[in-house]
């Protein structure tokens, strides 16, 4: 195993393993061919961040257009439709799905397990390049005539439209493989490479979360692949599968699509929950409250999450029985999430709470994810879903979960582990202030949209009725604030690489394994295999009075 983790150029140099991973090998090629999970994680981090910024610029363009009810800035409705499609597709497939697992997960999963690398380092590098190829397909599709179907590619519209649907779906198809391989790699790594003493119930909750996510990635993503392939076949070879004009069934596509894409929602949020479970104990200096409940709730979400896809289709004309069952199961899947929120809050009780930037992001997560989760109840309830479906209420709801949840967790994780990954500290006060700006901008942008949607403003509208203008304009101002927040973050993180203070080994006083090793980690992570003797959250002193 250990030789496999050493990249090509200097395989026999015994000292190389002891050098900080950033300096262990030099030159561009040492990155291109690297098998080091940490370097692959960093490359993913750069790629997903770039995607996030591109998708973010598109969001700003969309919001700018929506300041006015009429089309003012963009040349046509079509361009607007292409923009929101690209925004969605880029954010989902190129940013949010790989963001936490492939970037932060890649870097920290093996370290948290006390391993030198993932189980299949070459497959890991392959995942990254497959991701790059998928991204290239997406770019080609933009050049050829950017898709205007929405990221959901609903048929028969996606069979009809003249835009380059095949290229884009091939891109998503390829990206799917990247996701599957990462999931596979993580599952095997967790099973096989845990350090001595690291039993399942001593694993950090971030690992549990990644494990649950990986299961979904491996089981659900192939369905998306097959669906997109069928769509491409239908377009290219005119085989009637989804298009009623050729004898197909358009609603079948929705079933297939959501059979993947609902579990995919959990691919996006569960890793974020894992990060929150790391940050809160560290900055509250308390053991996580209810470790087992949190661990099992990840698995429960992963499993029940497979059975609720029909709740995206309550108005599609499916049978009342199906609708009823999907509604009931949808409510059920809310319980594990609720448990997590209660347990995180309980962890704060009698803690010693330090409001550093990562903690501020974690608390923002609880605030926003609670709203995201509770508004899900409006959509799970059938009577209200009929009214709210396909309005801005949905847009607001999933942004509260995906941005208020996952992106906040990603930002929290990024700040939390930045010192470990880069060896540099970012300016703390600026980080805290920026978190405030992001939080404010986010709520301005998206809370407004709950009201818009309840009032009946449909989504994916390039133009809209006058009565909605004040709220739309307010939301657009919020988006600008949010954009400024992310721009400042990008700037000071990059600045810290240059000028940031050198990071100590364990700036937050965490007990977790990754903080006990060198900063930045040495090439082979551990000089000798660690032996794990306790929980990663053994904070506090036994008082007797506690539980």
């Amino acid at each position, binding site marked *: 195993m250990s030789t496999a983790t050493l990249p090509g150029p200097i395989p026999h140099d015994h000292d190389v393993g002891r050098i900080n991973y950033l300096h262990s090998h030099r030159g561009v090629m040492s990155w291109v061919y690297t098998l080091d999970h940490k370097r692959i994680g960093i490359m993913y981090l750069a790629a997903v961040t770039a995607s996030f910024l591109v998708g973010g610029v598109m969001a700003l363009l969309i919001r700018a257009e929506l300041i006015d009810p009429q089309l003012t800035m963009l040349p046509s409705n079509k361009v607007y439709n292409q923009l929101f499609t690209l925004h969605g597709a880029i954010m989902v497939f190129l940013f949010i799905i790989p963001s936490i697992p492939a970037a932060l997960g890649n870097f920290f999963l093996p370290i948290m397990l006390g391993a030198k690398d993932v189980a299949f380092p070459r497959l890991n590098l392959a995942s990254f390049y497959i991701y790059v190829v998928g991204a290239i397909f997406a770019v080609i599709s933009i050049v050829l005539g950017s898709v205007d179907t929405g990221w959901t590619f609903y048929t028969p519209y996606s069979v009809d439209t003249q835009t380059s649907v095949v290229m884009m779906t091939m891109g998503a198809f390829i990206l799917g493989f990247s996701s599957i391989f990462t999931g596979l790699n993580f599952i095997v790594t967790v099973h096989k490479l845990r350090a001595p003493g690291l039993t399942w119930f001593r694993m950090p909750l971030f690992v549990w979360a990644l494990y649950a996510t990986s299961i979904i990635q491996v089981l659900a993503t192939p369905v998306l692949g097959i669906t997109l392939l069928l769509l491409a076949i239908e377009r290219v070879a005119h085989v009637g599968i989804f298009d009623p004009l050729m004898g197909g069934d358009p609603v079948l596509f929705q079933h297939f699509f959501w059979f993947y894409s609902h579990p995919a929602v959990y691919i996006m949020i569960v890793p974020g929950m894992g990060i929150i479970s790391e940050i809160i104990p560290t900055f509250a200096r308390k053991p996580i409250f209810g470790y087992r409940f949190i661990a099992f709730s990840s698995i429960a979400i992963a499993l029940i999450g497979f059975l609720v896809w029909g709740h995206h289709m309550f*108005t599609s004309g499916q049978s009342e029985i199906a609708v009823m069952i999907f509604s009931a199961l949808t409510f059920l899947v809310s319980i594990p999430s609720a448990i997590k929120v209660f347990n995180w809050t309980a962890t704060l009780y009698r803690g010693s709470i330090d409001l550093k930037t990562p903690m501020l992001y974690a608390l923002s997560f609880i605030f926003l994810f609670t709203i995201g989760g509770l508004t899900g109840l409006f959509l799970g309830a059938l009577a209200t879903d009929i009214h709210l479906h396909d309005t801005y209420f949905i847009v607001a709801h999933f942004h509260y979960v995906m941005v208020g949840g996952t992106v906040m967790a990603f930002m929290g994780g990024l700040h939390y582990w930045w010192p470990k990954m880069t060896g540099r500290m970012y300016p703390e006060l600026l980080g805290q202030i920026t978190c405030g700006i992001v939080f404010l901008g986010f709520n301005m942008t998206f809370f407004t949209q709950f009201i818009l949607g309840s009032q*009946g403003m449909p989504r994916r509208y390039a133009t809209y009725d006058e009565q909605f203008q004040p709220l739309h304009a307010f939301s657009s101002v919020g988006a600008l604030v949010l954009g400024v927040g992310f721009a400042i973050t990008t700037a000071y993180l990059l600045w810290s690489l240059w000028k940031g203070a050198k990071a100590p080994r364990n700036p937050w006083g965490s007990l977790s394994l990754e903080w006990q090793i060198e900063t930045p980690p040495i090439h082979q992570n551990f000089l000798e295999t660690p032996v794990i003797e306790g929980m990663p959250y053994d904070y506090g002193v036994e008082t007797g009075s506690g539980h």
Partner: protein
Amino acid sequence: MDKTFFMPRQASTMAAAVDDVYYFVYWLSVFFFALIVGLMIFFVIRYRRRSPDDVTPKITHSYALEAFWSIIPLFLIILIFAWGFKVYLQLRVVPANAFEIHVTALKWQWQFTYPDGTVTIGELGVPVGRPVKLLMNSQDVIHSFYVPDMRVKQDVVPNRYTVAWFEATEVGDHRIYCAEYCGDGHSQMYGWVKVMPPDVFNDWVAAGGIEAGNLPPVEYGKLLFEKKTCIVCHSVDGTGNKQCPDLLGVFGHEVTLTDGSTVMADENYLRRSMMEPNADVVQGYRAEMPSFAGLLKDDQTTALIEYIKSLGASE
């Protein structure tokens, strides 16, 4: 009822029931949000780090407490589920005495066909106080029929019928939107539900979906010319600036057709132009006019002809 901060006007019998579910979930959410975030903020202030050497208790779990906060939400979600489902069934089960209207969705237009064959475009006239059943079908991609004030939404799918119903409670106009993304014109796929007192409604349908009252034929024809979308393609002011033949002074003149022959534009020619537009295509134009056979009643066709004749007369 007028619109509230969150919800639009209540204009159907079901709206209040839907809103009750909405506001129940809303206040429940407000409660839990206040509880969680309130505790969070309280803990953050009360237990903020005072010194780097703060000592904290080792509290790891409490199965009793965790079971408690798993089970309480379980009861609440069962309640919301059951209530939501009950109202949903009412939204789905069409009352027996409903008045049936066929809805056809196409890019980017709503068409409504009444039992007597009257067809309206973008305007769904309904009687107040009587359930209306909508039998819906799409000619192209998936659309979704959405009237916020009625709390009605139903996807409209090609090759399959879907059904929705509502009973309007107040006279007035209510927005129809397309809620399922359908391409370039999606955000302009508007329409109106026009709620009328029953007798006005009956006259309205009889007049072909127009408040004709007792208009003289020429006036009626002029209205139809707009409502039936002729005006989208034809100019009537002699400018010919709409890519289709200008109809000013057509009547009573020779018209040259694509095959070079000529034909006298009399009443029968005008009638044929509407019913079988491709039978004789005017020279210099393509056969792009849709047939209005089945979309116009006899007296409407006559009124339109009278209107076109009147255009000639004013010359």
